[in-house]
């Protein structure tokens, strides 16, 4: 291959670079829409001056506000993804243009963007711990600010103007963008240093920039309330486990090291064409490999997100279907189990659709650990959903407030707080939250719909989801604690004394919790309450199975008194036969030894689903 042809290769590769953003957008839009929506749900942006002013009290607040502005578009995942990808592409292309990088090495400019993609898409469960407003868009917007700084400071060519401009822009930039402002000043100084300026001018640029980078955070410390050591990195997303923060910040810092190297790209012009080919190919590989390798892949996490999404949208029918679909996919994976979040959401959905008696044990049970770096409590994922939909508004409020304290207000917590205030008839408080949501782009319609419900008990009783929650609030208030975890709390609540004014729905839910507790005494109490209040034409399958099993075990004479289906009796006999052959086994061992029809019985649950960790 001659040199001319060699030169063409990197240019040809460069021309394919448009494929990357399109591919990323497509993958984001079609493969991870739930993740993007979760990012949006956990954020909040309102068009309100008062709220905006809240961002002005520390450096990088304005950039966080801008990031939140863009984050709201993730409500429509393809749209938000498009905006993000366009910004990433802009950052890469603008780097090439600003630093006049030859197209032979154009993929180098995509490396920071690739790191930003990897950073966001490797999060997984970390998303529940991120407490930096607008963290998703923050790095790319910070990058663009840094580029803007380079462009702006180039305009000041005379030494005095340059110094004055660097100082003013540097301090202002630090206030607007924090770390990114400082990175911009450093890059601009390097840019000037490698330009054809005189030696003195170069040194002066570097010295002034260094002074700004050191002094700006120190000078701002007097007016703000953050810790000294974070002053230089303020604006890099952080999370609640700050001890491990450095690890989380590293990718962003590496991305900006690439940015700082960009002004030196002119040196590459002198390199041999072979080296250029090598650099371009490496950059291309890195731009693809970095996000591809770090992309978070966990089917349980993905299904959890879909199930939570369905619960938020009151699409209860979808939740068991999602769990079923995943179970089918994982049929041959003997180590697979659902997480507790999936199990409890499935139970809630079955109650909401009235299928709990016939389908509660129709699914794999389990307590699979989250694939995560830091522990995420179930309550932080779905505490408010459980509290609200099980008719325990105190639990819902607790987790909404804890969430807002830890991570700031989000669309989700505002929604649930508004709904619990409506349930309690607290119009003023409901309006406080509805007003905030009313100022948003995508939740204002929802807020408008809720307003007529404030203080109109009759309307609440007829409107979903309240119509299914009010019957569950028939119990006397208790002072309680959920420190042990959300699921244990629910168990304790529904397995406690039955309320005097119990409703048929409450009795149904209590019966489900009783049957899951494997406590025959509790079961019989709840079973007869259920029969009495619900008066079912036919007793649901799993309640028959439990009654049949306990009657056999206790020999209490109910075998003849209760109308058991033949199918229940046959299944019991079949289970007994298989069980006596297999003997006592652990849950994982038993799972592979029992056929599906026997695994999905109460008998199997009673004998083989044991020692599950509940949270």
């Amino acid at each position, binding site marked *: 291959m001659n040199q001319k042809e060699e030169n063409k290769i990197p240019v040809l590769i460069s021309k394919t670079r448009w494929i990357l953003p399109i591919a990323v957008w497509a993958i984001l839009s079609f493969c991870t829409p739930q993740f993007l929506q979760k990012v949006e749900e956990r954020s909040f942006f309102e068009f309100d001056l008062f709220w905006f002013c809240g961002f002005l009290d520390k450096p990088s607040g304005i950039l966080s506000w801008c990031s939140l502005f863009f984050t709201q578009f993730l409500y429509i995942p393809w749209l938000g993804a498009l905006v993000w990808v366009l910004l990433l592409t802009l950052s890469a292309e603008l780097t090439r243009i600003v630093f006049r990088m030859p197209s032979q090495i154009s993929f180098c400019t995509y490396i920071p963007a690739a790191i930003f993609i990897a950073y966001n898409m490797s999060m997984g469960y970390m998303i529940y711990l991120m407490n930096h407003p607008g963290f998703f868009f923050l790095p790319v917007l910070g990058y663009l600010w840094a580029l803007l700084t380079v462009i702006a400071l180039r305009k000041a060519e005379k030494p005095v103007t340059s110094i004055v401009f660097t100082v003013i822009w540097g301090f202002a930039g630090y206030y607007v963008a924090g770390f990114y402002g400082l990175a911009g000043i450093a890059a601009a100084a390097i840019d000037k240093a490698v330009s054809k300026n005189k030696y003195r001018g170069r040194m002066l640029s570097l010295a002034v920039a260094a002074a700004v980078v050191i002094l700006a955070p120190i000078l701002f410390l007097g007016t703000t309330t953050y810790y000294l050591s974070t002053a230089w990195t303020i604006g890099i997303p952080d999370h609640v486990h700050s001890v491990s923060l450095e690890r989380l910040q590293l990718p962003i810092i590496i991305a900006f090291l690439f940015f700082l190297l960009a002004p030196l790209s002119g040196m590459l012009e002198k390199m041999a064409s072979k080296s250029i080919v090598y650099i371009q190919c490496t950059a291309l590989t890195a731009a693809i490999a970095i996000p591809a390798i770090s992309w978070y892949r966990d089917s349980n996490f993905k299904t959890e997100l879909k199930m939570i999404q369905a619960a938020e949208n009151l699409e209860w029918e979808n939740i068991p279907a999602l769990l079923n679909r995943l179970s089918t996919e994982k049929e041959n994976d003997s180590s697979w189990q659902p997480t507790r979040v999936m199990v409890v959401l499935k139970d809630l959905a079955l109650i909401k659709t009235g299928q709990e008696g016939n389908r509660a044990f129709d699914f794999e049970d389990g307590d699979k650990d989250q694939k995560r770096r830091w522990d995420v409590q179930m309550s932080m994922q779905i505490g408010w959903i459980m509290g609200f939909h099980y008719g325990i508004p105190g639990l819902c409020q607790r987790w909404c407030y*804890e969430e807002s304290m830890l991570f700031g207000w989000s669309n989700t917590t505002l929604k649930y707080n508004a709904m619990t205030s409506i349930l309690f008839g607290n119009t003023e408080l409901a309006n406080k939250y509805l007003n905030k949501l009313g100022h948003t782009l995508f939740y204002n319609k929802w807020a408008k719909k809720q307003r007529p419900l404030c203080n109109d008990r009759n309307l609440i009783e007829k409107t979903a989801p309240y119509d299914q929650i009010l019957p569950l609030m028939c119990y006397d*208030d208790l002072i309680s604690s959920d420190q042990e975890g959300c699921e244990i709390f629910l168990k304790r609540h529904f397995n406690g004394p039955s309320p005097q004014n119990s409703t048929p729905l409450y009795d149904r839910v209590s019966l489900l919790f009783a049957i899951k507790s494997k406590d025959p005494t509790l079961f019989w109490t709840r079973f007869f309450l259920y029969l009495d209040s619900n008066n079912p034409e036919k007793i649901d399958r799993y309640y028959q199975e439990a009654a049949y099993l306990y009657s056999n075990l206790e020999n209490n004479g109910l075998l003849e008194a209760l109308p058991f289906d033949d199918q229940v009796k046959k299944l019991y006999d079949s289970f007994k036969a298989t069980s006596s052959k297999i003997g006592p086994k652990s849950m994982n061992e038993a799972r592979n030894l029992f056929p599906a029809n026997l695994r999905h019985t109460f008998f199997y649950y009673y004998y083989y689903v044991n020692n599950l960790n509940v949270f």
Partner: protein
Amino acid sequence: MKKSIQYLTLLLCLTASCTGIPDGAVSDATPSIYPDFTDITVPSNIASPNFMIEDDADKYITLLKSGDTQVRISGRKVCIPLRKWRRLTSSGNISITVYEKKDNGWIKMKPFNMDVASEIDSYVTYRLIPPSFQTYDRLSINQRDITNFKEKVIYANSMAAANASDQCINCHSFYNWRTDRMQFHIRQYNGGTFYYMDGKLSKLNLKTDSTISAAVYPSWHPTHDYIAYSNNMTFQNIHTNHTDRMEAFDEESDLVLYDIRNNAVSIIENENDEFECHPNWTPDGKTLFYVSAHVDDPDWFYSIGGASRRNDLLKYNLYSKSFNPEDKTWGKTVLYYDAAAADSSLTWPRVSPDGTKLLACLSSHGVFPPYQSEADLVMFDLKKGTWRYLDEVNSDLAESYHSWSSSGHWIVFSTRREDGTYTRLYLSYLKDDGCFTKPFPIPQKDPEFSRKFMYSYNVPEFTIEPIKVSARVISSFVNSTDAAPVSFEQKRGE
């Protein structure tokens, strides 16, 4: 051309501002305004009470009159420039008339008044915290200059080296309304009690082997170098189905005295079957008021599930105890008010600066009234030995922490009257007849502030001067200094 447009615009503006007060129908209804500043008594030095007219109309004009001074403001939001407000208050009581333009022309609403009374202490220090249960990531102690709208952070837990969730700050307190001596507690990360005394900073660990916890609720001795504290083992739980979101309760509490000069802690009260709390000195420093709940059988109390289940049984009574500050000896304890006998619980006793009155909270049970919507303020006349509910001040929702101004003419108190959840600070004036005037919230620059602000105010305390040490100095000290130990000494007297 450009200049002509500018002149024309200027002319239009001038003409508009000269427009007289519109004629029209007269309504006998006062306008609906937020915050409700109608017919209140304000301190002469307070910041302008900006408000928003809630009635629906196309246009609004508000006319504020006091003596010869007149201020006219257009628009729904009535934000009174501070200088004009000062002119109004210096001219005497203020009459405010709102004109509303609706379809059928201008309507003059019934005027309302703001009476101007004596000055108030210029500064209120409070803790800001979003409503929460166990987490406290966003805490700060702030000081507001209530003669204008300036607010500054005294210390925020975001200034701690570790994550904010690791550090709680609470119970700021000042010596005789001055700021040369102040204190607040830091829990968990870099914990201790922070003191700023006559220019010196220190941090102490007031937990000793002989006390149940570090210091909690403070009361500075007014004449000597002592601080009375309660020691509390406090917990909190949630209500499952009640508008009062949670309960805070003590499982144990005692009273201690910290002797600043000797750097020593001694017990004031630590009976096994009593939960003592909320100490407060009389102005002469010779009597300590405090509250205490009696538990007949502590073993039984805990055997039935701990205080969380039985918090409703805890009824706090008001006690007083004489003290000789010269030799630190204590006299007998006297039951001052038996709240338990009336099936209620009395908390937060605060004696007025002249020592004639005592303001407190009365609720159905427990020691933490902010979480009880029925909690109300009550006032004892210490001369006559009578007490009454402050009906003119109380609302249907919780009233709780309260402080006297140094003059004893003003009180600031916490209330959840606006929405049941977010605690706001209200002021009220004590008239010569012993009644308070209609309470009103501390004015804010933006009239809608309270509706939009997502933090609660805790522990409002007046001071007559600003805090002299900066947040950055406090932060570097708090986060770089270990809490020094204190010694324990035996109680004297009784």
